[in-house]
């Protein structure tokens, strides 16, 4: 089972732990010795036995027909879902009209002044520059459409997330109930659940907003609950002794104490909502995402980039501003007068713009970056594709990687008896976690078999494992370099920012031009996407190693390499494990999108389901992806991990 362990390299276990590990393995071996002969005799030892699958296509097909036939008449749609959809349309429209009414000058001024109040002058200038750049790229109106959609989606996510978080933070039972749900949402690739949302709400903005809320609300809920639960008990006791009611305690003590977590939750929610902006364009979100998607269709990387850059800029600006606001909390109380001045200034600029008749971005102020970008990409892909002296071209690498890594891995996984894979997953998850995580992981893997997609699931799994291996090797190397040199880290930071926020659709086409159609480009795209998080977590983990330990090692005459191997890496083990876990989750998300470039397997099924409106194929594949996500997360999840997604 070297193939599976490759996904989760583990440092040597300390003594007592190893003892427990042996015990766990023995117990598992005992259970296996009893169950496996029985199972193998009854259902055979090949792929997943047909007797244990459930065919859901007929009921799902009927459900899909029912929805389509009743969408415009059934009370459930008329009196509930219709209103939800209506509310979304009305609010997005309201925000959009306000943004258009303020004109480009007004919006830029408002953004800059808000950034100035909460985060200082430098970020205010950055915000203004970012907005102006969106206009120069010729993307003003799409940017406003995306912004309107984001404002509504983020507000709804924050509301939903905060309510759930409050419930989980105040009641232990709710917490136990919600935690597994939130855990699952955390590993759920967005692509997997677009289809049911579309079926109910139809193509368009309401479906896009709701899909975004489902994706972006969990971090808010998780962090709200965390903040409420983590409040200092002594402070709470002191407040309680003052004879306050539970409501007063919540409003005056617990919520204010949790505001750091609340702001971090807002930050995470905004980032995840933005990352959905492009994926949601597949179901008609409009705005920037739609421009990226349309450019993709005409194989126009330059145009896709022109629409992708505003997304990156928005993401970076919002991340920095909310981050700075979080750090400033409690240091200097912002005066209401300052806010008033800022607001007045923004209104003045907007009115001035209106009076001058300059609401729309002037057409002459647009720079065309598409043509030069396309030339550069064309030149690069033409020259790297094949026939590079000594190292061969990227196409040869891709063919080699497919033939020597992906094929053996996939065939190996698919050739193993089904029960041995279940056992391997159980053993891995149990060793690294608890019997609970092991049970979840095993059941989740079994579920892919029951759903009848055992083979495609293992195909996807093989791609994930290969991509994770590449990501970890590269990510650790870069992370170590970044941790050891400040200069290197400063250079890397903007690159990582861009890679982390750039919509994946933008680099799907260059990746195909370099690696051809197939599983190799899917793996390459996944590596590009997951690398920044892995590098960040590794570098941060290494940097946080206790300086005293390093100092003493240095005084003993340890060389740089020795320090790294013997002190830094072992001490940073929790961070490294977290990097593995994050890497796995992120890689899975993109390997699924790889269905668009020939990745096949579950990703293709989801794309097919969306394209053909085929609920049976799409939903089963989506469910299998969720199961795979659970397996991968639980197998790499050390006990006691609690951290937000996306580093």
């Amino acid at each position: 089972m070297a193939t599976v362990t490759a996904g989760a390299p583990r440092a040597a276990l300390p003594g007592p732990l190893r003892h427990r590990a042996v015990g766990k393995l023995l117990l598992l071996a005992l259970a296996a010795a009893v169950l496996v002969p029985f199972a193998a005799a009854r259902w055979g030892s090949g792929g997943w036995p047909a007797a244990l699958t459930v065919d859901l296509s007929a009921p799902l097909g009927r459900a899909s027909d029912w929805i389509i036939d009743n969408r415009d008449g059934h009370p459930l749609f008329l009196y509930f879902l219709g209103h939800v959809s209506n509310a979304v349309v009305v609010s997005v429209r309201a925000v959009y009209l306000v943004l258009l009414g303020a004109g480009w000058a007004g919006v830029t001024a408002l953004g800059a002044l808000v950034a100035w109040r909460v985060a200082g002058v430098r970020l205010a200038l950055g915000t203004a520059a970012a907005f102006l750049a969106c206009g120069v790229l010729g993307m003003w109106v799409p940017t406003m459409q995306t912004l309107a959609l984001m404002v509504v989606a983020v507000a709804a996510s924050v509301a939903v997330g905060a309510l759930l978080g409050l419930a989980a933070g105040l009641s232990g039972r709710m917490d136990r109930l919600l935690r597994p749900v939130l855990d699952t949402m955390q590993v759920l690739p967005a692509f997997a659940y677009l289809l049911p949302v579309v079926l109910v709400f139809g193509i368009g903005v309401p479906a896009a907003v709701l899909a975004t809320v489902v994706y972006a609300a969990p971090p808010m809920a998780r962090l709200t609950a965390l903040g409420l639960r983590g409040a200092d008990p002594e402070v709470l006791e002191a407040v309680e002794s003052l004879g306050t009611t539970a409501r007063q305690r919540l409003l005056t003590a617990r919520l204010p104490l949790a505001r750091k977590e609340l702001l971090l939750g807002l930050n995470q929610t905004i980032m995840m909502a933005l990352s959905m902006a492009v994926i949601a364009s597949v179901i008609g979100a409009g705005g920037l995402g739609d421009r990226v998607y349309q450019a993709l269709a005409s194989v126009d990387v330059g145009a896709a980039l022109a629409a992708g850059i505003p997304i990156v800029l928005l993401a970076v600006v919002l991340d920095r501003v909310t981050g700075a606001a979080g750090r400033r909390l409690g240091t200097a109380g912002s005066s209401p007068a300052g806010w008033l001045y800022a607001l007045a200034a923004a209104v003045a600029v907007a009115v001035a713009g209106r009076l001058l008749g300059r609401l729309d971005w002037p057409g002459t102020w647009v720079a065309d970056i598409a043509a030069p970008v396309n030339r550069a990409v064309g030149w690069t892909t033409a020259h790297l594709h094949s026939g590079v002296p000594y190292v061969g071209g990227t196409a040869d690498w891709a063919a080699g990687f497919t033939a020597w890594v992906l094929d053996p891995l996939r065939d190996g996984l698919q050739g193993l008896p089904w029960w041995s894979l279940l056992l391997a997953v159980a053993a891995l998850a149990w060793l690294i976690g608890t019997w609970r995580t092991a049970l979840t992981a095993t059941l989740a893997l079994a579920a892919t078999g029951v759903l009848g997609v055992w083979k495609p699931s293992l195909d996807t799994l093989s791609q994930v494992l290969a991509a994770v291996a590449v990501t970890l090797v590269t990510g650790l190397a870069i992370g170590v370099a970044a941790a050891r040199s400040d200069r290197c880290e400063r250079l890397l930071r903007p690159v990582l920012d861009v890679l982390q926020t750039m919509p994946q659709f933008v680099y799907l086409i260059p990746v195909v031009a370099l690696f051809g159609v197939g599983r190799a480009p899917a793996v390459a795209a996944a590596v590009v996407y997951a690398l920044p998080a892995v590098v960040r977590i590794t570098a941060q983990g290494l940097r946080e190693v206790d300086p005293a330990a390093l100092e003493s090692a240095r005084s003993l005459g340890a060389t740089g390499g020795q320090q790294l191997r013997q002190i830094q890496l072992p001490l940073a083990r929790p961070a490294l494990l977290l990097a593995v876990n994050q890497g796995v989750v992120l890689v899975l998300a993109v390997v699924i999108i790889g269905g668009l470039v020939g990745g096949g397997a579950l990703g293709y099924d989801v794309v097919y389901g969306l394209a053909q409106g085929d609920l049976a194929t799409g939903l089963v594949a989506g469910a299998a992806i969720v199961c795979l996500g659970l397996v991968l997360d639980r197998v790499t999840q050390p006990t006691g991990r609690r951290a937000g997604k996306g580093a």
Partner: protein
Amino acid sequence: MRLRTIAASGALLLLTGCGAADMTRQASPFADARGAKTVTLSVQSWVGAQADAAVAEYLLEHELGYHVDTVQVDEVPAWDALSQGRVDAIMEDWGHPEQERRYVEEKKTIVRGGELGVTGHIGWFVPTYFAKRHPDVTDWKNLDKYAGLLRTAESGGKGQLLDGSPSYVTHDKALVKNLKLDYKVVFAGSEAAQITQIKQFAREKKPFLTYWYAPQWLFEKVPMTEVRLPPYREGCDADPDKVACGYPHTPLQKYLNADFARSGGEAARFLKNFRWTTEDQNEVALMIAEEKLPPREAAKKWVDSHPSVWKEWLP
């Protein structure tokens, strides 16, 4: 406090309309901004459809004073969106009998908008430089002979038949099986990926076999020759698992939302009249896809040089 206001305003919004809210009567929130009359067109992902939409958009905006929104949607979901009124028209449909029965005949939420004037054809193609060297490859019976040349990393020992987006009409898996060919269908997953791969093959003059369709601008860049499949006969593709014949020639159709067709005024009449030829469409598509002109400019160029064609469409 802010949380509560947000929650309260959310609840208020939900309760504003207490009556029924029909989702099929909800337009896009971006439509009709600043009092313009808006038409929403569905653009499918291939460039031919983009050309249709670009020219229609240009004329609607400049000749008839409408504002046009375009949404990119896959084919089957586009029918859904059309029936719900999220889009007003599909400019180019390659034949979806099941959806036609459901929406046009049973629910009557969609009406036919007449022919586009372009005839579409799907088939298997090899690059012309390969067909010249091996003339007999253009008959499906000889394909097995070349399977070795068409092998790739993804096709695992067999020849590779490159297929495109899952949204397109295809029987290729069944065809390969029923014609007992030594080929494997490799799905590129999107047309963009398929085109990129074809161009990359063509740059190195490598042989390939691909699912493709005409009219398509790529033929101008990478000349391709069709492989003759067993001829199409009416009904030979009735059972998707037993198909053993090629693809038909389909006159492409336009479809309009029923309400829009009734009350869409000049825009609806214009879209019904819209009818051009394969050459016209290719001219615009090539400008968009190869010269990388923005669709709007490509449409302007064509409109400026072909006034006699589009003057007849105006109501």
